[in-house]
């Protein structure tokens, strides 16, 4: 399984870089840092079935860091949620997929995101709603580290354990960078996992690029004590391409033709 996941993640990274280039869409490095998390969720054990993308009782995945939408789009298309052709038209006039997800834009996109700090409160509502309907659906919210600076995240972080929402899981893509600086320096983020623990979550740390470990973590059962789960995934911004890793210019930079080719080679795709 892990070889497949690795190969899938490499393919997705290259696709994302091509999409960023073609559409001149920014936030490339933010998407690259969470590709392994997306791959593990959508291709790992117990991954959701695209044929059930409209099933009212389905599990829900919210990409709360909406600026990494190209990562989600590439993953969903590869998994069969919608045609690959949608990726080719990405961000063009009138296309299905915009730079950040619009409401109901595509199967598998559960929420329009882009403004940070919205995904977790809505995820709580989804989890509460599922529980009220006596469904066992799970809700996963993927957030950025910069996003954890929003007050609404911590309002939600206090509410979910009070409601004992064990079917709710947060993944923080902790790549240590935000748009214009190092996130743990801009705000006192650390110790991030302790913050989640202190708020009443079953919180753990993980190497967000150890795709097998991540996939294993994602298939774990809900906490028997009823706590929601938070994973602080240590990641590298721009992961997978040597000249993009940890270079925050790639938060906004668009790769040139040459850079796309070079990245493709590094990823074993070109």
């Amino acid at each position, binding site marked *: 399984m892990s070889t497949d996941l690795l190969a899938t993640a490499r393919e997705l990274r290259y696709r994302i870089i091509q999409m960023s280039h073609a559409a001149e869409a920014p936030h490339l490095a933010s998407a690259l840092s969470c590709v392994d998390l997306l791959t593990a969720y959508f291709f790992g054990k117990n991954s959701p079935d695209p044929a059930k993308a409209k099933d009212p009782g389905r599990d829900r995945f919210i990409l709360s860091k909406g600026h990494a939408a190209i990562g989600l789009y590439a993953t969903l298309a590869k998994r069969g949620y919608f045609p690959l052709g949608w990726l080719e038209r990405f961000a063009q006039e009138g296309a299905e997929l915009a730079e950040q997800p619009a409401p109901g834009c595509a199967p598998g996109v559960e*929420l329009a995101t882009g403004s940070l700090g919205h995904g977790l409160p809505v995820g709580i509502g989804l989890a509460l709603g599922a529980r009220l309907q006596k469904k066992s659906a799970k809700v996963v919210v993927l957030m950025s580290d910069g996003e954890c600076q929003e007050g609404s995240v911590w309002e939600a972080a206090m509410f979910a354990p009070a409601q004992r929402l064990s079917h709710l899981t947060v993944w923080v893509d902790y790549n240590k960078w935000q748009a214009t600086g190092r996130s743990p320096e801009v705000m006192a983020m650390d110790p991030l996992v302790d913050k989640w623990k202190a708020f009443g979550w079953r919180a753990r740390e993980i190497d967000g690029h150890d795709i097998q470990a991540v996939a294993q973590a994602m298939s774990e059962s809900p906490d028997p004590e009823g706590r929601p789960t938070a994973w602080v995934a240590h990641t590298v911004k721009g992961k997978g391409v040597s000249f993009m890793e940890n270079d925050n210019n790639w938060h906004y930079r668009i790769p040139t033709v040459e850079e796309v080719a070079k990245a493709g080679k590094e990823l074993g795709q070109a």
Partner: protein
Amino acid sequence: MRNYFAKRITDWAQKDEKIVLLSGDIGNRLFDKFKESCPGRFYNCGVAEANMVGVAAGLAIQGFRPVCYTIAPFLTYRAMEQIRVDLGYHHLPVILVGTGGGLSYASLGGTHHSCEELGMLRLIPGMNVAAPGDARELEMILSHSLHSSSPTYIRIGKKGEPVIHPTPLKASPGQPLCLSTGKDVALVACGTILPEVVLAAEHLKRDGITASVFSQPYLKPFADQEWNKIFQEHRLVVSVEEHSRLGGLGGALAEWKSNKPKSSPLLRLGTPDEFLHRTTDQEGARKYFHLDAEGIGKSVKDFLRS
């Protein structure tokens, strides 16, 4: 009005299992019956309004009809972006009920006043906005919003407001509600200022000015065609609200009038571009802003003389 809201939402929720009530840590004992008769469908979301609105959005996506209830300024100003993005952009049928609207909580200070929120929410595409003038209007608006596919903001008062309409109301959303007819001016109220407006019409009558009285609880939708008639039939239309003269009823009517240069003039009565810094109660605040019956009457007479 808030007791009436609690009673009616409890009645409705007993019949409709989709109704879920979210409270921002207010209404102590107010919802005891709701909690008892609708187990699992009442959530005290704490002092965390942004989260409450997001949670409501998630519940609405799951097919529920969430109703968020807390003090008007906290529900709206604090959670403005959640209302815009989670409810507006996604067009989810969540009902927001802001209690203590306008100057209801004048005595608690400027933090508790809401004289701008109707205008702010009216700008959100697809959002219904209403401020009922009495319990019968609230009943009608709640019924509309529980059957609507749009998000709705309902600004209510506190407790003890008089019932003005003699009988239950049946009107479509956005329609002005006529309480009495006169030949000279049309007084139009939005929200719980309604009894002052009714009284102001009586004062004016003593001075030989006959006034029609309308209540216009809805700011969105806004029944355009009705206003043609009202402006044609009166030589002056006066909007009255516990809200800024900008953006609320007066603002909506001014916008409506902007491409009708021949219509009668509009006098907008509301709060000026000023926070209330005076220690006072609702009655005192209305007096201070000339929004009590006497002040309204005087403004109308001054305008007609000018």
